[in-house]
């Protein structure tokens, strides 16, 4: 569930927790790796992804939100 923090890369600066308007990182403590406390409240704007100076955050887009596209190849019907 979004966002996903790479614990190896995270520098514990807390910027993601600071800027998230939904506060999905609620309860995170300064100087520690933020907790993704309310992942389902993520709005998938990727603000946290792009403010992270260590590029430690990725958004895992939940299955219900997968974009629907028309494939360029033929669809097998058997």
């Amino acid at each position, binding site marked *: 569930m979004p966002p996903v923090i790479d614990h190896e890369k995270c520098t514990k600066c807390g910027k993601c927790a*600071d*800027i*998230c*308007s*939904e*506060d999905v990182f*609620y*309860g995170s403590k300064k100087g520690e790796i933020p907790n993704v*406390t*309310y992942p*389902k*409240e*993520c*709005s*998938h*704007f*990727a*603000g946290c*992804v*792009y403010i992270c100076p260590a590029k430690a955050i990725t*958004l895992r*887009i*939940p299955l*219900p*939100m*997968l*974009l*629907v*596209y*028309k*494939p*360029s190849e033929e669809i097998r019907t058997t």
Partner: protein
Amino acid sequence: MFQEEVIKADVLCVGGGIAGLMAAIRAGELGAKVVVAEKGNPLYSGCGRMGNDHFETWVPEVHGEDMDAWIEELLGTAKGEILIGKNLLRAQFRKAYDVVRLWDGYGIPMKHKGKWEFSGHTFPGRPFTHIKYEGRFQKEILVKQAKDRGARIISRAMIFDLLKQGEAITGAVGVDTRADKIYVFQAKAVILGTGKCSRLYPCLTPGWMFNDPHGNVQAGDGRAMAYRAGAELQNLEMPQRHIGPKYFAKFGQATWVGVVRDWYGKAAGTFVTSPDRRYGDMICEVSKLAPEQYTMAGKGPLYMDCTGIKEEDLEYMLHWFVHEGNISLLDHMKEEGIDLRKHPIEFSTYPHRGGGLIVANEKAETTLKGLYAAGDEAFGDISAAATFGYIAGENAAKQAGNTAEPDVERSRPVIEDKKTQLDTLRGRQCGPDWDETQVALQQTMLDYAGHVRNESLLLQGLHHLRRIKEKARATLTAGNPHELGRCLEVLNLLDLGEITFIMALDRKETRGLHVRPDYPFTNPTLNQAHIVSLRNGRASTSWRPY
């Protein structure tokens, strides 16, 4: 037990979106002591959080000196049915170009490669209406401008009710969404800019509530508190729907350079026949219901088809996607191997969203003394938010200069009552949480005030919603300060849902998305503002010419 902090200001801006920040900038510039209270963080809050790429404005070098001619052309074609007074649109457009130049001066690039760039939101052959601008970092820039003019910005402060003495607004109360603390604001003028009402109806992905192009914390807070304070609201029963990529709810209909086509490649409209960077496909503007109608007619799905796009136009579109706040959409397409050159993207009619607005005039004044409204709270888009935010800030500052300092202590019984309410929500051990309550609300709204409405359906829905509201008031639980904020949002939404039913019953006609088979025709005499306000504890409705 809630701690209390009293904060005094001349002008209090509720919400730090585009409107709130522009209000803070202008009021600060005029010397007012300004506080912005934002329940998230204004650097990344509101519809404009990750950017916007178009701004509706007249530009004299492009459109000629006759601004009024451009305005009238715009009102005559591109706008379709207007559910607000044209005087408001005229006020916006007369100021919008000034605001564009201000933004350019602040460092938000309003030109592209040194020139005014127009595209999208325009019918081929008609005058252009929206400049393209690079808004990716607009919030950061506006926050800095507000701070430079002395505005104090308080994040994680969710205002939930207004304070009033007599008929004048004197402040507001809010909670800290990270600590058990109540904020008491004393202000000579309050500007509401809390945005849309996103969570009244279920979202695009059932069971996954936070998937709305506006973001998901816009819960109609401003409308609800304005109503409870006695201000007039308008047209709440007229829901809105948008159009965009299926299941990944994002704005940007006019940023897409493609043709809306069916599975077999047949265009849905007649405006463009191949991807055109100047116009996009206006079918999205003409009928946001097109994807749903295609499906219902057995012709679906419908796609935004960019195949055949020129390489330079693809690059152009991707550039503007970033500024329109759709960077996560681009990342997702990349991860999934979706190539717009060969993969049409299914478009969807997005679900119902709570409609209506707070009644405000050309000066952004609501019907309560000392209370202003701007942005999606009142009406409009990015241009309206910026322009009316500025107008609201100017008039609020002027009013504050002529108003004696109110004494917030005179509202002490009300404040203590609010504290008790908050204590109760936080203290309960057992009961529904906010999202359980919201599911109950949303299913009731969709089933009884959704696609089709009639008197019996609406009466049943109103009765059921009131039961939910009563139970929520008596049993809602907030496990921590974050959930307390969500609970207050849901309580606001319940109020707005109830008013929506009352107004839908009162609108005895079919118009737009208000479909009443028991009154199947549009009644031209009801082409007026439908007003509601709280009088003696009850919703009182009336009609007034726009």
